[in-house]
């Protein structure tokens, strides 16, 4: 019987010959058609790096920038088949800079060809790619030692590289590692055994790929059905459209909605070709329930006797994919199946050294780094460990400001700690305290450059409020840093944590019924948005003290700009660190408020107009 389509990737360091290998494979399985060959010959003369020979890499390096620079930037997908099997190849870039594109290619594959240049041996990128491939659940690896022609087809070179790789990958989760010596450029051991390496007893690459057994028996696992879309064409039909992530389902089977625990039976399995008696992964079908229980996009339907985790905290490995580093505490959007929920990294357990497998302490992750992290979500979701399910255990983090993918994550396990800390219901709440104090509690958040006048204005406002017998507290950034936050410095990571803690304290003050004044540089829009998100609408007022940098430098009340400009203070906002201006502040204090009294007038007027002190 013909084996199912094999999805594999080629990876390894730059210049190890990945694209050349794919080109050679396509050519030798006569998949290059005449008109493509003609255009390849034209392109080889124009861009080629192989002299008079055809440059096979140009078959897959399809972007202009790639051809000009002779490198692979993004993953290319190629399709070919032999009489025995069909293949989908993801040809992945080798540059570290483009690792996220490599991970994109690897995520849907079942086998990886890891290329190594016989002359160079294992490189950092070889290790990085081996780690990512393992992390993403690819269980079968071909260690393709390429350019054997350039080391005189020397068996000892091959044996040494294989031994090194076996030692280095001992802790990775591969089921099979198949070493093959080859020359992609010369065609040795690519689609037929090489006469130059008679010492190699194993199969050539193509023969191996044609017979490789990578089945992970998705259908044999527990039933998982992420509800993708509720199909409701009229009042008589309500179906759950989705794709089976794993397992089987038959008409009449009992299922449970993981998050709610509600159970029902499957009344119908609907397709356009007629109802089915049963379906199995990875089919796309529409399920109709026997009872009207609640379920919608994001819900996970499963076997009542084999349920997924439901939690709002878990440990996961992240591959960081954004140019901007990870900020623990910052709110990202986590997308897992049909669920999108705000989430933050609460702890970085360690960062992985891809070469030595060492676990290093880390306060952040930069582009292309891998770390084990704890994450907290705004609400519980249903999931499995990635090791058990590559669909329900995978997620991405999305940067809320750019909408870009900040990280890819694979879930390790749910965190149970939180389940023993329940919220204590409070008998006296914010509303009651508000009436008692004749005021609506609110956070007045002053943001702006150092020396802009935030603290001065906040002090004037507080004095005015005191005259009106309002109940207030002022959380000054400098003062809080002397106590609660004295363990924090001024790196971006620490600044994010500084704001997070002050935000949480301000929220407690709000619970106490107070007006909390917070003069803080708070340079990042994301953190200001996070604090706003902690409280209800109308309880956070963003006041932008918009004093131009030149004036702040001229004032320099603490002499800090002088030191920063002289290079004595690092990470100083406005000097060598950017300040992100608020896009839509509630109140702006600009040049039209030349002194703190006028600024205070404006703020008090804003509060009065909205009835903050007219509470009885």
């Amino acid at each position, binding site marked *: 019987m013909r084996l199912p389509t094999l999805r594999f990737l080629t990876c390894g360091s730059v210049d190890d010959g990945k694209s050349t290998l794919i080109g050679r494979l396509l050519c030798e399985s006569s998949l290059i058609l005449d008109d493509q060959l003609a255009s390849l010959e034209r392109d080889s003369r124009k861009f080629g790096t192989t002299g008079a020979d055809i440059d096979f890499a140009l078959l897959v390096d399809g972007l202009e920038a790639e*051809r000009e620079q002779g490198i692979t930037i993004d993953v*290319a997908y190629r*399709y070919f088949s032999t009489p025995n099997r069909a293949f989908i190849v993801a040809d992945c870039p080798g540059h570290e800079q483009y690792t996220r594109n490599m991970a994109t290619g690897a995520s849907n594959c079942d086998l990886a060809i890891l290329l190594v240049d016989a002359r160079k041996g294992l490189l950092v990128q070889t290790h990085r790619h081996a780690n990512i491939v393992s992390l993403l659940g690819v269980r079968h690896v071909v260690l393709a030692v390429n350019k054997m022609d350039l080391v005189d087809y020397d068996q000892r070179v091959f044996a040494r590289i294989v031994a090194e790789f076996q030692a280095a990958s001992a802790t990775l989760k591969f089921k099979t590692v198949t070493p093959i010596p080859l020359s992609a450029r010369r065609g040795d051991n690519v689609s037929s055994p090489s006469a130059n390496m008679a010492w190699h007893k194993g199969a050539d690459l193509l023969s191996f790929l044609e017979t490789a057994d990578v089945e992970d028996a998705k259908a044999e696992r527990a039933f998982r059905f992420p509800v993708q879309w509720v199909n409701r064409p009229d009042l008589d039909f309500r179906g759950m459209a989705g794709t089976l992530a794993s397992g089987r389902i038959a008409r009449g089977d009992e299922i449970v909605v993981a998050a709610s625990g509600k159970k029902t039976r499957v009344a119908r399995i609907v397709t356009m070709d007629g109802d089915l008696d049963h379906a199995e992964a990875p089919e796309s079908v529409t399920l109709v329930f026997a009872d009207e229980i609640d379920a919608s996009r994001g819900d996970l339907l499963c076997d009542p006797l084999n349920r997924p985790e439901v939690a709002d905290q878990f440990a996961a490995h992240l591959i960081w994919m954004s140019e901007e580093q990870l900020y623990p505490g910052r709110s990202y959007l986590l997308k897992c199946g049909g669920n999108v929920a705000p989430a933050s990294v609460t702890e970085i357990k360690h960062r992985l050294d891809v070469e030595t497998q060492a676990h290093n302490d880390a306060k952040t992750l930069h582009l292309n780094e891998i770390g084990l992290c704890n994450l907290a979500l705004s609400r519980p979701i249903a999931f499995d460990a990635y090791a058990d399910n590559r669909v329900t255990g995978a997620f991405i983090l999305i940067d809320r400001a750019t909408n870009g993918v900040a990280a890819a994550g694979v879930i390790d396990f749910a965190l149970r700690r939180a389940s023993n800390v329940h919220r204590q219901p409070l008998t006296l709440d914010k509303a009651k305290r508000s009436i008692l104090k004749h005021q609506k509690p609110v956070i007045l958040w002053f943001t702006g450059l150092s020396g802009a006048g935030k603290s001065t204005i906040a002090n004037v406002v507080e004095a005015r409020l005191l005259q009106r017998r309002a109940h207030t507290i002022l959380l000054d950034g400098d003062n809080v840093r002397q106590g609660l936050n004295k363990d924090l410095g001024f790196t971006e990571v620490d600044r994010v944590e500084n704001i997070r803690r002050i935000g949480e304290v301000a929220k407690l003050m709000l619970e106490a019924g107070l007006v909390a004044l917070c003069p803080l540089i708070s340079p990042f829009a994301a953190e200001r948005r996070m604090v706003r998100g902690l409280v209800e609408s109308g309880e956070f007022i963003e006041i932008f003290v918009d004093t131009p940098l030149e004036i702040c430098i001229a004032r320099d009340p603490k002499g800090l700009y002088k030191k920063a400009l002289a290079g004595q203070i690092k990470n100083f906002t406005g000097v060598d660190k950017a300040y992100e201006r608020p896009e839509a502040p509630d109140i702006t204090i600009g040049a039209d408020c030349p002194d703190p009294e006028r600024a205070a007038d404006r703020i008090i007027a804003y509060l009065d107009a909205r009835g903050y002190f007219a509470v009885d």
Partner: protein
Amino acid sequence: MTKAARLPRVKRRLALDDGITDIPPTMAPATPYYLDTLHEISQGFAGHQDISMALSEQLRRLEAESIFILRETVAEFHNPVMLYSIGKDSSVMLHLALKAFYPAKPPFPLLHIDTTWKFREMIAFRDQTAARVGMDLLIHVNGQGIARGVSPVASGSSVHTQVMKTEGLRQALDQGKFDAAFGGARRDEEKSRAKERIFSHRNAAHGWDPKNQRPELWRVFDTRIQPGESMRVFPLSDWTEMDVWDYIAAEKIPVVPLYFAKSRPVVRRDGALIMVDDDRLPLQPGETPEQRKVRFRTLGCYPLTGAIESDAATLEDIIVEMRASKNSERQGRLIDFDESGSMEKKKREGYF
């Protein structure tokens, strides 16, 4: 007869909001031009004989993945639209959409960017298909291009494609305020397509930034966009041309009769066989249309689409012919030959 007066009439199904699908009345001939082909199309899609079979595991998996992508788009976007270009890939994509949302109708309209130079049989097939599936069909013509007299004959392939297809598409997407547009492109078609994501981000000017694509892991798609931006979605990304024909045969999906060999009037021009589909194609000195048995592997504007000589009159024949073929399907597309990398350039400007 003036040149403008010979332009075909474009039927209007559902006007986009400012109604630029209207062709000035002076340009519309009195009778629709395609009546003669309707009969043939309605003859039960001549190519379908009894060669349908159960779907292979490969096709079942491709089908399931495409359905997932179609549903994901509808679940995540406010106002999707399906680019319907009448060819075999569009036929398959539409068929998958019918399956994805059954028993509901696909909750989005079809959009055809009509350059006014499509084969007559394509237009007849388009209208018949829309009626058969019962979905709204939006037809958009770049009226400014018509007014400027742009055509493949007068302006050449690259200007015609830029104005009538790329600009026309941008106009239609802007006017419809569509935030996601399905296209039937496959990654095996061309080198820059092979690099493109399934959910491919477009800026507010519909431009593609190939050097800075979003990571796309598993089937977890980052569908978030800013106002004005949009997403192109390619449900057939992982299909090959062979998969498409195998699926058409297995599922008995109607396709335009032009894919099947038949005696047709053609002229040989720059090595390509161009069908003389109407009297708008100026014949060069010494050219006389001759009847040859030809078919098309890919369909576009008729003066820009080369036929191949073939006896393949049924789906079975086509599949046999394809397995033996030594040329790719885009060989028949004159617009891709302008220069290497021309597809990427067009895509960066908003082409599908």
